[in-house]
């Protein structure tokens, strides 16, 4: 019984994992350097999220406008107060009091307005984040399984947490600054032009310099930030994977190696982070050099002009004050541009995920599949995860409504693939699958999937109570129904022994239950769901045979009148199936009832005898 030269390979080989531990995390798929995408396009898309807040942003803008007025009024009022004190021999208390009262009002107003800005922006930025994160999560729904199968979970998670956080920090840090900076620049420019157009020209010399500097630096930081976010994602993926599999790490004494791999990714991230930070950190000091050159220029030009008596000393003094006021927001803007790069880097990774290809949409004329009779026909079905390698070849068979079919065969023969095709986790590459006479691609995907009840070999339970997990199959079930389902699955007895019974909270992936108990819960889940078509993929592999026998009754009861697909290695669990199909190398080797196949003396009977050879001899 040489079952092992099987063609095997039942799922796509991951050719191109985004980040491998030993390689160059973050270098991504494209080439040696993460290429920043189109800046304007990304900004536009970010605006799509920010724009929804425009009403609030308009209010913030109005607040900033008023606040700018107040902050300009304060120095003026101080001047008035000082004049009231010092102008004449006597202190003019009337004016002083009035000025101080005005000052108190201005300061109080400034404080309140500043607070309101902060308060509003907190709401705005977090709403934007929430919306983006929600959009990303919704996107996950449409993605085909192969997307999840080829990526580290931590890497995807990093996009939903670290990258989005980056966007949010950027939005909350830059939006208000951008507005107040703009107002300040325009205001100062006007004042400067009024004072002296010539000096204005002198001080504007610095503007192209600032622009050039900001461009040079951001050109570098954009790439670095992008790398940094990608490397952070890779590190996150590595951390998540090793923390999830820490039992295996310990069992194999792999701590040292895991730490070494981590260290490599950690250091790569560190070095990129360092470079990004150093480059972006150069902006401010260099800006102040440019500013001071500007001051010097103004002072020298102004001095020369004053010496030639074209302008007065007083003009130079006030001009310098205003040009300082002009330069500060200009610096801020340059800095914002820099901070923006980090936000863009995050946003690009967010959008990258949003742009992933989804499962194809349902055709416009798709019908809903509801309460089908359950006649399933495979008509000349071919399939390969990669085009050049077909796993299922010209497979044709029919399962009558309400009957059960068992798929047996060596591991990797394509049994699970058949289930994947039926549920449209993957689509056939040739031929068609029909349920109730209609191609399954003509049904809406959601309605198609809801007719199946699947118990998988890798039972997945969610954190939550036992009750919630059983109700996963049917959310509106009553406690009574839950208990009945658990009883049928033979799970009630062990659940009752738990301190909180049905309200016991399962730790991650049901860690506080044994593997077999988890499978019992998964079976209860399907029993409760009462699906039209039942799929049991190694559903009882971790359950001991005595317990299995009890469940068998419940399963048999459920199979009555339901189309059922069973995949199992323990042959005694499938012998009650109406028909048994032996799958070898993606095709049907033989098919018939247990008795027929035993009588034929083919592959099946050999497998059967192999399994029971020893026992029969005993």
């Amino acid at each position, binding site marked *: 019984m040489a*079952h*092992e030269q*099987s063609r*095997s390979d039942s799922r796509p080989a*991951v050719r191109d994992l985004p980040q*491998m531990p030993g390689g160059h995390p973050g270098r991504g798929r494209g080439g040696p350097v993460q290429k920043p995408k189109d800046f304007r396009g990304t900004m536009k898309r970010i605006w799509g999220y920010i724009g929804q807040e425009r009403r609030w942003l308009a209010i913030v803008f109005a607040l900033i406008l008023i606040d700018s007025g107040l902050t300009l009024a304060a120095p003026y009022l101080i001047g008035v107060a000082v004049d009231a*004190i010092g102008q004449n021999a006597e202190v003019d208390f009337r004016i002083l009091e009035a000025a101080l009262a005005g000052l108190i009002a201005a*300061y109080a107003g*400034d404080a*309140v307005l*500043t*607070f309101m800005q902060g308060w509003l922006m907190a*709401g705005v930025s977090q709403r934007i984040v*929430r919306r983006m*994160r929600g959009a990303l999560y919704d996107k996950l*729904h449409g993605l085909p*399984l192969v997307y999840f199968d080829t*990526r*580290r*979970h931590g890497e995807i998670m990093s996009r*939903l947490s*670290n990258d989005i*956080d980056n966007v949010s920090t950027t939005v909350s840090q830059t939006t208000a600054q951008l507005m107040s900076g703009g107002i300040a620049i325009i205001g100062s420019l006007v004042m400067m032009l009024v004072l002296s157009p010539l000096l204005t020209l002198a001080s504007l010399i610095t503007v192209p310099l600032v622009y050039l500097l900001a461009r040079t630096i951001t050109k570098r930081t954009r790439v670095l930030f992008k790398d940094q976010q990608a490397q952070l994602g890779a590190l996150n993926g590595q951390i998540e994977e090793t*923390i*999830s*599999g*820490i*039992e*295996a790490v*310990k069992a194999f004494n792999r701590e040292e190696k895991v*730490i070494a791999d981590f260290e490599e990714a*950690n250091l790569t991230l560190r*070095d990129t982070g*360092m470079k990004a930070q150093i480059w972006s950190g150069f902006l401010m*000091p*260099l800006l102040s*050099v440019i500013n001071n050159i500007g001051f010097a220029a103004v002072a*020298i030009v102004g*001095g*020369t002009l*004053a010496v030639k008596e074209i302008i007065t000393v007083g003009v*130079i003094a006030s001009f310098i004050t205003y040009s300082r006021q002009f330069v500060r927001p200009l610096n801020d803007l340059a800095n914002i541009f820099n901070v923006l790069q980090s936000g863009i880097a995050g946003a690009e990774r967010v959008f990258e995920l949003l742009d992933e290809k989804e499962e194809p949409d349902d055709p416009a004329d798709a019908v809903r599949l509801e309460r089908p009779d359950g006649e399933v026909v495979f008509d000349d079905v071919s399939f390969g995860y*990669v085009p050049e390698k077909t796993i299922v070849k010209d497979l044709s068979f029919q399962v009558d409504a309400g009957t059960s079919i068992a798929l047996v065969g060596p*591991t*990797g023969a394509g049994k*699970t693939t058949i289930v994947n095709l039926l*549920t449209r986790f993957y689509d056939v590459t040739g031929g068609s699958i029909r349920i109730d006479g209609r191609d399954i691609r003509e049904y809406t995907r959601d309605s198609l999937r809801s007719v199946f009840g699947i118990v998988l070999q890798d039972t997945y339970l*969610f*954190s939550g109570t036992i009750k919630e997990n059983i109700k*996963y199959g049917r959310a509106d079930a009553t406690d009574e129904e839950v208990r009945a389902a658990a009883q049928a699955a033979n799970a009630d007895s062990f659940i009752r022994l738990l301190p909180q019974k049905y309200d016991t909270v399962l730790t991650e*992936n049901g860690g506080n239950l*044994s593997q*077999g108990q988890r499978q*019992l819960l998964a079976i209860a889940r399907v029993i409760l769901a009462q699906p039209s078509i039942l799929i049991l993929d190694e559903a009882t592999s971790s*359950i001991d*045979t005595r317990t*299995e026998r009890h469940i068998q009754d419940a399963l048999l009861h459920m199979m009555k009148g339901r189309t059922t697909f069973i995949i199992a*290695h323990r042959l005694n669990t499938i012998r009650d199936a109406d028909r048994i199909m032996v799958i070898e190398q993606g095709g049907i080797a033989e098919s018939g009832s247990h008795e027929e196949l035993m009588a034929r003396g083919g592959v099946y009977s050999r497998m059967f005898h*192999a399994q029971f050879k020893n026992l*029969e001899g005993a």
Partner: protein
Amino acid sequence: MRNERKYVKKYGLPFSFAFLLVAMEALCDLLQPTLLSRMIDEGVSRLDLNTVLRFGAYMLLVTAAGAVAASGRNIVSSRVSQRFGAELRSDLFRHIQSQTLPQLDRFDRASLVTRLTNDVTQVQNFVNGMMRVFAKAPILCIGSLVMAIRLNPKLATVLAIVVPIVAVLIYFNLRIGFPLFLKVQAAMDRLNGVMREYLSGVRVVKAFNRFADESVKFERINEDYRVHSVRALRRMSVFNPAVLLTVNFGIVTVLWIGGLRVDNGQMQVGHIVAFVNYMTQILFSLMMISMVFNMLVRAKASYGRIGEVMASAAHVHRRTGAEDEMEGRGRIDFEDVTFSYDGEEGTPALKSIRLHCLPGQTVGIIGSTGSGKTTLVQLIPRFYEATSGTVKVDGVDVRRLDPKTLRDKAAIVPQRVMLFSGTIRDNIRWGNESATQEQIERAARMAAAHDFIRSLPEGYDTKLGQGGVNLSGGQKQRLSIARALVREPEILILDDCTSAVDVATEAVIKEQLRTYARGLTCLLIAQRITSVMDADQIVVLDRGEIAGIGDHQTLLRECGVYQEIYRSQIGKEMQSHGA
């Protein structure tokens, strides 16, 4: 956290250097206005072009010096903060790796991931921010304070009120912000948790068509995170304006008192103007300090969470010499072992287990779901420790042994397959880093995996997704067995890891083990009697107790539970075939 001292020691010097550079930078900034005023006073006013140009040159010189200091500070602070962050993360990661499973069980796995990434980043950002602005602010603040007091001690009494109020405000900022940001980080944990769950359970979600419900769950947690963030940010947004207001009212007071004193002839207007200027400078520096404290609150919350993990003692195992007392190769003894996951008060998962496995023996373990089979074998590599009684390997209590030694000796193939992203070769080599291709293939052959690996287009270089999702259940189990075999262990523990492997393949694996791994002690948990019936001894577990030990024939005669299991598997066949 005890580790603080270590970081201070290591980064203290460069940190101080950055501080020095910032001070220089501040000094240059302060020099500029003075130079400018002298240029105006001595040059422009006297219409002396040479002086104007001279001071212009000085200004450029000071500018250059400031730029050098600032650039130096930038490089130093970036290096220090990134190195510190990387080291903190690395220490935390190492610490987590050194923890025992019961210690790790105290934290949600998703939370550990958040702490390693997000929390470390928060602390790192704070350190960086501190080195950039914090040093400058106190220098400016103290400098201005000194100048203000020297200028007019009487007016400075206003500062004696303003500064403590600001201090109190900052204190409350910390007090109020800290718990709020702790909650934000905890919400982040939940967000990460629910995402992780979705990603691992994506097949089930799709199969049950439950995306809408998962989405509701996610939305709730997403919204929860938003609410906590907004609450924390809004609470924080009170403090900056409050500091602003306090200092500004101080300015108003100075003007008022100044007015009174000038009226009395005790003071001159010039002093008021200068004083107000100093106060404005103090205001700016205080705002900066307050901003740093805002960052500190977040960082402190994150640092606390990191400290929580670091607080539990690392398990450092030193060789005690007990290894030398070990005799034989692969003997295992359970002496009256009782175990409970919840300590002594908990319900025991294992009760008074007495069991002896001799070197080279194959021991089958069988029993119903939840009877304690997995728990039993997990005590051998010391994943968990016996609550009472002792587990001995080669005659020595495992608690006296370095787990490394133990785990090198005993390879376990867990029930839940854990494969990692990487090639098939990487995954097998996981068991033994130094394994040659030959050894890898030998292990794969023994696990009946070689043939299927060879038939893959890329053979041993086929890449696997996380958890080996692109293989079938049986293939994953066989890789997992190969990974254990490549270690060439003395004790092999197979925890029901052939459940998805067909019987013929299972027979091949067992035959291979018999031929090539003679002398290997093998513990075999299984559901199928055929898997264990040829073992040297079979242990029947029932509700944490041993219901019977013996070979197949003995148990069939004497053990009721075993008979039941036997009947459940063979009964029908016997009837229908009369074999």
